[in-house]
Structures are given as structure tokens and as C-alpha cells.
């Protein structure tokens, strides 16, 4: 028998609150990795815990007809929490672009990163970090949900409560800026606008 889907778990949890832990076991690790890539693992600890507590409190209002997969809902809640750290995120991206030392990575992850023979891509990553720091908050959110959370356009639209067309236009803007940065035509003249 197939395991119950997320929407079923959420419905159960309205009567049996501890059932919600199943949702945590399914999605917390991926959500943590996403948040850790954005803000570091320490901040990710809090974001994941708060995301699930918030989701738990709102579970009775979850619309099972809208989505059987709870990931868009959870990532949407997480996006709100991550958004409160936007300035920190930008500062860390800029620090990496400036110094080549990524404050988000743990020493172990940095060592793993260094072990990769990618002298060329290291420079590209610094450019990428600089470009990500210049993106508007909403544009960065869409790009990183596509690239890191593996969500579809429709799922991102559901997560951020925006039309799919807006997802496309935000992604297009983000791509344009990233492409320009990685091609060497630095678009990052708005460096100070978002800080």
C-alpha cells in the first residue's frame, strides 16, 4: 500500500497532532539544506523549526484540494522566514564575492569545496555570489527555488502566492542578470540598492 500523501497526513494531524511529525521526517532535511545554502546551518536550524511550527499552527487551514504535496506550502512559509534575513544573506554573498571565503559554508563544506578541482569555477562562483546579491528579493527567491529546491513554476507560484506568469518574469530577470554577471558584463551597478 502506498504511504499516505502529505495532504492526508495534514488532515490526520488535525485530529492527531503528533501525526504532523511525519511531515517533518519527510521534508525537514531538504528544507534545512535549502535554508543552510542560503543562510548557513545555524540559521537553518531555526528556520526549519519555525517553518514546521508555523505550518503546524496553520494545518487546519491547509487546502488538500490545492496540493497533495506539502512542499510548496512549506517552502512558502520558509521563504517568509528567510526573507527576514535578507540583509544578512546579501552581506554574506558580498563577503564571499569580495574575499573568496564563503561564510555560509562550514569548515567541512569549505574543505569539500576546495577539494573540487575548480579554479575556474571558484572565480565564477564569486561572480555569481555578487550577482545574486544584486537581485531583487523576489527574483532571488524564485531563482533559488528553481535551482536549489527543485520546485516547478506552478509550485513556486503556490509557495509565494503569485501568478505563474510572475514566476516566469522574475526568473527571466534573474537569469538575465546572472548571465550578464557570468559573461563579464557586470550588471551589479545596483549593489547598494538592496542593502
Amino acid at each position, binding site marked *: 500500500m502506498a504511504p499516505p500523501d502529505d495532504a492526508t497526513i495534514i488532515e490526520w494531524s488535525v485530529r492527531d497532532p503528533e501525526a504532523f511529525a511525519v511531515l517533518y521526517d519527510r521534508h525537514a*532535511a531538504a528544507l534545512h539544506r535549502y535554508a543552510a545554502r542560503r543562510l548557513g546551518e545555524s540559521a537553518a536550524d531555526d528556520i526549519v523549526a519555525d517553518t514546521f511550527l508555523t505550518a503546524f499552527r496553520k494545518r487546519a487551514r491547509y487546502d488538500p484540494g490545492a496540493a497533495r504535496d506539502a512542499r510548496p506550502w512549506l517552502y512558502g512559509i520558509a521563504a517568509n522566514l528567510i526573507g527576514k534575513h535578507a540583509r544578512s544573506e546579501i552581506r554574506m554573498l558580498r563577503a564571499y564575492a569580495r574575499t573568496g571565503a564563503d561564510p555560509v559554508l562550514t569548515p567541512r563544506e569549505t574543505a569539500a569545496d576546495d577539494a573540487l578541482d575548480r579554479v575556474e569555477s571558484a572565480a565564477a562562483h564569486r561572480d555569481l555570489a555578487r550577482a545574486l546579491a544584486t537581485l531583487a528579493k523576489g527574483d532571488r527567491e524564485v531563482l533559488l527555488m528553481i535551482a536549489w529546491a527543485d520546485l516547478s513554476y506552478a509550485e513556486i507560484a503556490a509557495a509565494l502566492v503569485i501568478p505563474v506568469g510572475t514566476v516566469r518574469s522574475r526568473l527571466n530577470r534573474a537569469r538575465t542578470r546572472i548571465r550578464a554577471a557570468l559573461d563579464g558584463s557586470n550588471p551589479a551597478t545596483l549593489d547598494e540598492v538592496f542593502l
Partner: protein
Amino acid sequence: MMSKTDEIERTAAFRATVGSPSQARLAPGRERLLAAAVADQGRAGGARPARPRWRRPLLAGGLTAAASAGAAAALVLTNGPAAAPGQHATAGHSRTTVTAAWTVRQDVNGTVTIDIKKYVGPAGLQTALLEQTLRADGVNAIIRAVPITHGHTACMYAPANEAPLAVQQAVLPNDGVGVLQDDVWDIVVHPGAMPHGSAVFMPVYNFPPSKPGQSAFAGANSLVVLTNDTVPACVTHLPTPKPSGA
């Protein structure tokens, strides 16, 4: 010029060495979630159990015992915005009561904020003190511990006398759910919105350490307004809720 896909692929490769977290790293978040679930079970709605008569708690005896024990509760009562020694001064608070287990602040506008700290304290004493303090601040409060057996709730409170939703929302912002900040549950109550004769019911729970070195985890994050001060029954099984629309 790279293709459009390249931007996403390059972004996907950025910080790719960030790995999945260990179970140990995820455990505290799961524990918090379960604690919230336990607290929520303590006020699971939809139930219609028999209504036991409310028995007045032995407040006087509890207070005497607390005072004589002295160790668990360092009770500080203040009036006016000035803070007592060892107490955090915050402008605009007309009254603050601090114990080792909880803090109650009554703002000048009448709003009462309860901070349930990490450890609720010896059974009965802290809840009796909290109950009395809230009543002094205009909140007719009923506080009961959620029995925990082998790390799970032994029963859950099922109020049969929940006040209507509009009252709940007026008295308890955020659906009566506390906000967990730095391991302290922060709960806000608007006593001025409580109808005459109503009471706020707060189940509190306290998990003992599950392994050596671990601290107890306690709290209360889910309150409910009752139409009267009948104490909800603590039941082992919730009755089947009525079908929606019935």
C-alpha cells in the same frame, strides 16, 4: 554566451557542498514540533466529554508550600514601570511577576503576556502561582498539567465549553498559540475582551529529560477561552468529531 539553462545549472552548483543535515541536527526542531503537538492535543477540539464539576485548586496550600520550599520559585511582584532587582526593566509595563518558571507582564493597556520558560517547575506549585497571578491581572485562568507517561501524553484535554471563535480571536491573538522564542513560549491574552464568567484554559506540559545531559522541555503554547470555569476533562480518546456541515 551560455544558454539559459546554464544560469540555473551554475546556480545549482553554487554551495552544492552543503550537505543534508544529520538527524542530531534536526532532532531539536522535531522535539519542538512534538511538544507543540502534545500541547495541542491538550486542547483538541470537537470533543464533547462529560463535564466534571470544577474543583477549586488548593491555591493557599500550594502557595504556602512554595513559599516554604523557596527554591523553585523566586517570586517578584512589582507595581509601576520600575523593575525590581534582577528583573528586566521594560517601559510601559504596569505590573510584572517573575518566577523561575514563567513571567507574567500586564501592560498599561491591560494586555497580559505570559512567558512560559523552559522548565515549569515542581508539579502544582508553579501552575498554582501562575493561575493566581493571572487572576490578579484580570485573567480568569485555569491551568492544568498535561500528564506525560513514557514521553507521551497520558490523556488530552477536550473542552466541551469552548467559547465561540470570535471570542477566541478577541481574547487570544494568534489563535491562542504561543510564539516560541529562545525556548520561551510567549503568549498574549486580552482580558478586556473576555465575556463575563468566561475563563482561559491553559494546558501545560513538562517532558522529563529523555537521556542523560538533556534538559527538561516544558511549555504551554495553546490556550482556549471557555464560556465558564468548568475544567475540561482529560480524556484518553477523543470522540469522533461531527461531520462538517452537520
